[in-house]
């Protein structure tokens, strides 16, 4: 762990974080969701000023979304993954666009692909998709293959290559 990371863990003690070490320059800090914004604020002020990515993981079995903020320290190369879990059935969180203005676009993307609302970020127009008519596509219960089959017709081949391959090689499933 680099100096700045041990300092960060020290500073964040009061938030009762759950700290996991991924490798010697990367840790994951899990927090309850009311403490995330203030923790990010603290981390930004002690040198983790570069926001690499905001992303989301859909833990459908736990009925939760996990939001991950990846912060980077330009001084000694420490990376911190700040993670929190929010309810999947009514996904809502608070924006961090005041801390990092570029977060607006990451949040807009997450809203588009996962359907999470960010309070305070009013620009939630679709960014990548146009005239999307289904549930947010990155959710685990969305099946792109079915959608593709319905909407985009395939070319019909006279020879069923996959079937022949199966006869030749046997079933191929992980």
């Amino acid at each position, binding site marked *: 762990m680099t100096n700045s990371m041990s300092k960060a863990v020290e500073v964040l003690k009061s938030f009762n974080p759950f700290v996991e070490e*991924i*490798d010697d*320059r*990367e840790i*994951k800090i899990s927090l309850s969701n009311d403490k995330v914004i203030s923790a990010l604020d603290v981390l930004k002020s002690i040198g983790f*000023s*570069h*926001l*690499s*990515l905001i*992303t*989301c*993981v*859909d833990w459908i079995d736990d009925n939760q979304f996990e939001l*991950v903020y*990846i912060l*980077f320290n*330009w*001084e*000694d*190369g420490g*990376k911190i*993954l700040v993670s929190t879990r929010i309810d999947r059935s009514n996904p809502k969180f608070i924006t961090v666009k005041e801390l*990092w*203005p*570029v977060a*607006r*676009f*990451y949040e807009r993307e997450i809203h588009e*692909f996962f359907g999470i609302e960010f309070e305070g970020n009013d620009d939630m127009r679709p*960014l*990548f*998709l*146009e005239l999307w008519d289904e549930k947010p*596509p*990155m959710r*685990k219960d*969305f099946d*792109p*293959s079915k959608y593709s089959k319905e909407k985009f017709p395939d070319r019909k081949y006279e020879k069923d290559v996959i079937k022949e391959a199966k006869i030749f090689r046997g079933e*191929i499933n*992980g």
Partner: protein
Amino acid sequence: MGEVKLFFGPNHPGMHGNFSVHMYVEGDIVKRARPLPGFLHRGFEKLMERRYWLSNLALIPRICVPEPDINEACYAMGIEKIAKLDVPERAQWIRMIVLELARMANHLSAIGGVGGPIGLYTASHWGTADRDRILDIFEALTGARVYHMYIIPGGVRKNMTPQIEEMIWKVMDYIESRLDDYENLIFKNRILHSRLKGRLVLTREQALEMGVTGVGIRATGVEYDIRKVDPYLFYDKVEFEVPTATDADAFSRVYLKFKELSQSIKIIRQALEKMPQSDKVNVPISKGSALRHVVPKGMAYAHIESARGEFGFFVVSDGKNKPYRVAVRGASYPQGLYGIEKYLPGTRIEDVALWLATMDVCAPEIDR
């Protein structure tokens, strides 16, 4: 004269890739601008969840077209972090060589790409022709010109033969000998100076606030390079400098790319010298079929310094044979979306294409 609405792209010769900027102009001055990405959205992150760990190797190079190797490297490094794999030493050196070659290829096409918007087509022709020599190395090494699928979790796919090493030495000498011509044709050209110097300035505060990485931030005078700050592979074992500039304008950004070419040549030469001879270039990562390969539970973020800045993969595994979630941090995400909206107003129509070219806005990695 009132405001006129203009659609800069997607079908526009000044556009790099398939991207669009909608803007209102008054005279030649841009008043408001809004990026419109999504023309290259293929749903990569979803598709990766549906494929096996190793069949994703065919998919990921397609995320960033000008420099595909960084995707493979990030993905492999992410998996190695989770699974705690030890990569053979020779494979690490080969990866470094491949990544630096890819950086050079991208810089050469970027220098050519600046030639397009300002009308210096000779620069485009030279840059693309010299990039082709690097693609020839890739073809000899990996069998493909553009999408290599060469760096795999646990090493690289195939060993580098002495003939290919010889070829790399030769091409490095050739490109080094061409650098003077580039300097004379492009970077001493006074019309080019008048087009680029002092235009599209992005100060250090603005760049840091926005999260710009790569030459965008190094043009403001700080040595922020992930190869130095957070060394991966063996970048801490080779000597190289991180060129910086203080003007923070379009010219210094292009010039830094040009300067990095000679640093990349230096790194590749050192790597070729220091690389140990060995036949072991990858660890067998699975027992039996590669499709049954399983990565233990965990998550990791691996990032590297691509030609355009910080490029990262966030990989989550739930211990099954497919990735649970992969998220990609495109290097040009901040400058391509936030930067266009915030910093293009006030510039001229001619500068829009230059912003895209000098900031290396790469549409496929924004859209994914």
